[in-house]
C-alpha cells in the first residue's frame, strides 16, 4: 500500500511537471507579447520583457518557473493586477476559496443526492418512481450546466425573485443555491444512473440472497451489503467529476458573476498574463490530480478485492 501511494505521488508530481511544461510552451506559442498594446513602443515592450525576465531564452524561463515553484514562489502578475504576487491573487483575494467552496458543495450535493436517488431507483426498479427518476436523470445529463444555470436564473431570480441574480462573493445561503445546483446537476444525474446500474448488479448477487436468508432486514441489506459493493463505480467516477466541476465552474462563475478562480483563469488566458495562467493551471491541475489520487486510495479501502498493482493493465 505504502509503496503504491509513493509510486502514485511520484507519478502525480511528474504529470504536474509535464502540465507545467506543456502550459509554458502553449503560452509562449501565442504570437506577440503580453505587453503589446496600441500605445506601447518597442522600447517599452523590451523594458517590460527585461523586467519580468521574458527576454531570456525559453528554457531558462521554464527552469526559473520550476525552480520558483519548488520554492513556493508563484511569481507576480504581469497584466491583470500588475506587480501583485500571484499567490496573493489566488489565495488571499478569496478567489481560490470561493471556487473551492463552490466546487466542494457541488460535489457534496452530487454525492448526497445522486447516491440515494440511484439506490431508490434500483430498489424500486420498474415502478413509477424508477421511471420518473430515469427520465429526470436522462434529461439531466443532456442539459449543459450553463444552460441550466441560465434557465434557473430566469425562473428563480428574474421571474420569482427568490434568489439573487448575482451571487457575488457568496455572502449567504441564498446566493449559493443556484450556482451549486446548476454546477452539480449533471453529476448528480450521472451518479444516480451509475448507482442504479451498480446497485442492481449488487442486489442480484448471491451474498445478498444469503443475507436475506439469514434474516437481515431489507434496510440493512441495502446499506451494509449492497451499497458498499455498488459504490465502487461511483468512487472511480469521482476523479473525473472533480475535473468536470472545476471546468463547469468557469461558466457557472461567469453566469452568476462570482469572482472565482475559474472566471479569472479565462480572463487571464485571453489577456496573456503568463505567471497567472501558469499558477492557475498548476493549482487547478494539482487539485484534480490530488483528487484522482485520493479516489484511487479510497477505492482500495472500500474494495479490498482490488489489487492495486493489477490495476495497471
Amino acid at each position, binding site marked *: 500500500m505504502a509503496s503504491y501511494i509513493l509510486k502514485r505521488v511520484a507519478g*502525480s508530481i511528474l*504529470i504536474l511537471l*509535464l*502540465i507545467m511544461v*506543456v*502550459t509554458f510552451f*502553449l*503560452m509562449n*506559442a*501565442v*504570437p*506577440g507579447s503580453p505587453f503589446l498594446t496600441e500605445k506601447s513602443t518597442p522600447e517599452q515592450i523590451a523594458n517590460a520583457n527585461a523586467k519580468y525576465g521574458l527576454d531570456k531564452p525559453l528554457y531558462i524561463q521554464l527552469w526559473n518557473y520550476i525552480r520558483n515553484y519548488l520554492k513556493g514562489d508563484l511569481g507576480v502578475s504581469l497584466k491583470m493586477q500588475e506587480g501583485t504576487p500571484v499567490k496573493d491573487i489566488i489565495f488571499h483575494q478569496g478567489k481560490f476559496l470561493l471556487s473551492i467552496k463552490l466546487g466542494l458543495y457541488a460535489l457534496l450535493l452530487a454525492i448526497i443526492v445522486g447516491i440515494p436517488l440511484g439506490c431508490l431507483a434500483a430498489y424500486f426498479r420498474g415502478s413509477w418512481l424508477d421511471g420518473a427518476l430515469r427520465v429526470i436523470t*436522462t*434529461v439531466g*445529463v*443532456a*442539459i*449543459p450546466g*450553463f*444552460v441550466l444555470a*441560465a*434557465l434557473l*436564473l*430566469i425562473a428563480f431570480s*428574474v421571474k420569482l425573485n427568490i434568489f439573487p*441574480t448575482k451571487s457575488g462573493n457568496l455572502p449567504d445561503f441564498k446566493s449559493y443555491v443556484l450556482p451549486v445546483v446548476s454546477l452539480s446537476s449533471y453529476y448528480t444525474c450521472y451518479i444516480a444512473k451509475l448507482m442504479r*446500474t451498480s446497485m*442492481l*448488479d449488487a442486489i442480484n448477487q448471491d451474498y445478498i440472497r444469503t443475507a436475506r436468508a439469514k434474516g437481515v432486514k431489507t434496510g440493512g441489506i441495502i446499506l451494509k451489503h449492497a451499497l458498499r459493493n455498488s459504490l465502487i463505480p461511483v468512487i472511480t467516477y469521482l476523479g473525473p467529476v472533480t*475535473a468536470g466541476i*472545476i*471546468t463547469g465552474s*468557469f*461558466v457557472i462563475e*461567469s*453566469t452568476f458573476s462570482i469572482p472565482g478562480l475559474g472566471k479569472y*483563469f*479565462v480572463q487571464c*488566458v*485571453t489577456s*496573456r498574463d503568463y505567471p497567472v*495562467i501558469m499558477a*492557475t*493551471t498548476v493549482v*487547478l*491541475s494539482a487539485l*484534480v*490530480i490530488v483528487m*484522482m489520487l485520493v479516489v484511487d486510495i479510497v477505492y482500495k479501502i472500500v474494495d479490498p478485492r482490488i489489487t492495486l498493482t493489477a490495476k495497471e493493465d
Partner: protein
Amino acid sequence: MKAPFAKFSPFQVDPDKIMETFGIEDGDFSKASDNEKESMVEMHKSISYWKDAWRRFRSNTVSMVALFVFLVCLFFAFIGPYLIPYNYADQYRTSQKLGPFEYSEDEQTARLAEGVGDGFFATALRPGSITALDPGEYYLKSGRTSYVFTLDTLTENVIIVLDKNSAEPLKLYTEDAVKKGAWDNYTVLPCTNTPSENAVRLTLTKKVFPHVFGTDSSGRDLMARTMYGARVSIIIGVVAALIVLVIGSLYGSISGLAGGPVDFVMMRIVELIYSIPEVLIVLLLQVVLKDPLQAWFQAHSETSAFVRAMSDLGAGIVSIFITFAVLYWVTMARIIRGQVLMLKKQEYVTAATALGASNGRIITKHLLPNCIGPLVITTCLQIPSAIFLESFLSFLGLGVSAPMASLGSLCSDALQTITLYPYRLVFPAIVLTIIVLTLNLVGDGLRDALDPRLKK
C-alpha cells in the same frame, strides 16, 4: 461401369465398401424431386449482423423515438434554412428585438396586404410615422416606375396597394377596410409615370414569414440562427467524433496488437493524457491556435481547397478539431485496445499471420471490423460530448465567432439580455438539449443492439 472414387488418404472412407455393406445398388440413387429439394431449403434466411442489430434496435421504443426526434433535428438544421426566407447573417433593421411571432410595423402592414393577392405589393402610410405627409402631391416609386398621387389629409392608417404588372391601378385602402376585406371601399388615385427625385420609396415586401423564435438586437431572425447553429454544432460533433474514431482506433489497435514494451509505453501516454485536466489545456489551445490558424488560412486558401473549407469554418472550430485530435481520443483508444487484446488471440488472426499478412492488414481487415460494435457506440456517444465541449467554449467566447453561430454561442449571446428577452436563451437551449439527449439515447440503444452482452 462404375467410376472409381479417387482416394486421397488412407483414412478416407471407401464409398464402394459402404454401398456393399448396406446393400445399396447404383440404381437406388435417383434425382431429387422439386418437393424434396424444397424441404432442403433453409427454413430461415440467415440474419446478418446489421439486420440483427437493426431488429433489436427497432424493438427498443425509446431509442426509436429518439432516433426519429434526432432525424427531425437534422431536418431542422440542414433542410430548415432552405424553407424559411431568413438568413442567419442578414440583419433586418426594422425588425429588431422582436419576440416570438411578433411582427415589426413594416411586416404588419405587409401582412395586412397579404389578402390582396399575388403580384400586389403594399406599404403603409401611418399618421405620425411619416412626418412629411402633409396634404398635397406625392410620388411613389416602385422599382423603375414612379407614381404620383394626391392626398388630402391623412387621418387614418392607409394601405397603398400597387399592381406590379400594370402601372395603372394604384389603390388606397383604409386599414379598417383591409381588415374587413371590404375591397370596394378604395379610392383610385390619379397617377402618372413621372419619375421624380422626391419620390417616396415604397418598401416592397413579399409574403411575410413569422419570426417564430423572434429576432435578436441586430434584427437577425433567431429561428434561422438556431437552425444554422444546430447545423454548425452537429457538424462539429460529427467531425470531432470521426477524428477521435480514426486516431483512437488506430492507436488502440496498434497498442493492443503490438503488446509488450510498445503497448506499455503507448498506454502510459494514454494515462498521462487522461489525467491532464483537459479543459485547462483546451482553453490555452484555443487562444494559442487562433492567430497562427488565421495566418495559415490567409497564406494557403488560394491554393488549397481543403484550407479554404477550413477557413470557412473559422479558426475557432478548427482549433476545436485539433483539440479533439490531441486530447480526446484516449477513451476510444482504451476501449479498442481492450477489444484488440481479446481478438488478437482468435484463430483467424493467427491464420492471417501465418499466411504472411502484414500488421497493417491484420488491423484493418481483421481486428477493426470485429470491433465495429464498440467503434460505432463510442463514436455515437462522442458526438454529444463534442457538442457539449463546443458549446462550452463558445459560451466562454472562444468557439465560433459572429456572424457565425453555434448553439453554444447563441446561448452565450442570449445570456447578456436574459432579463429582458429570456426566450432568446430558451430556444437554442432546448434544441441543444434535444440533440444531446436524443444522441445519448440513440447511443444507448445502439449499445444494446450492437453489443447485447453489455446489456444489463
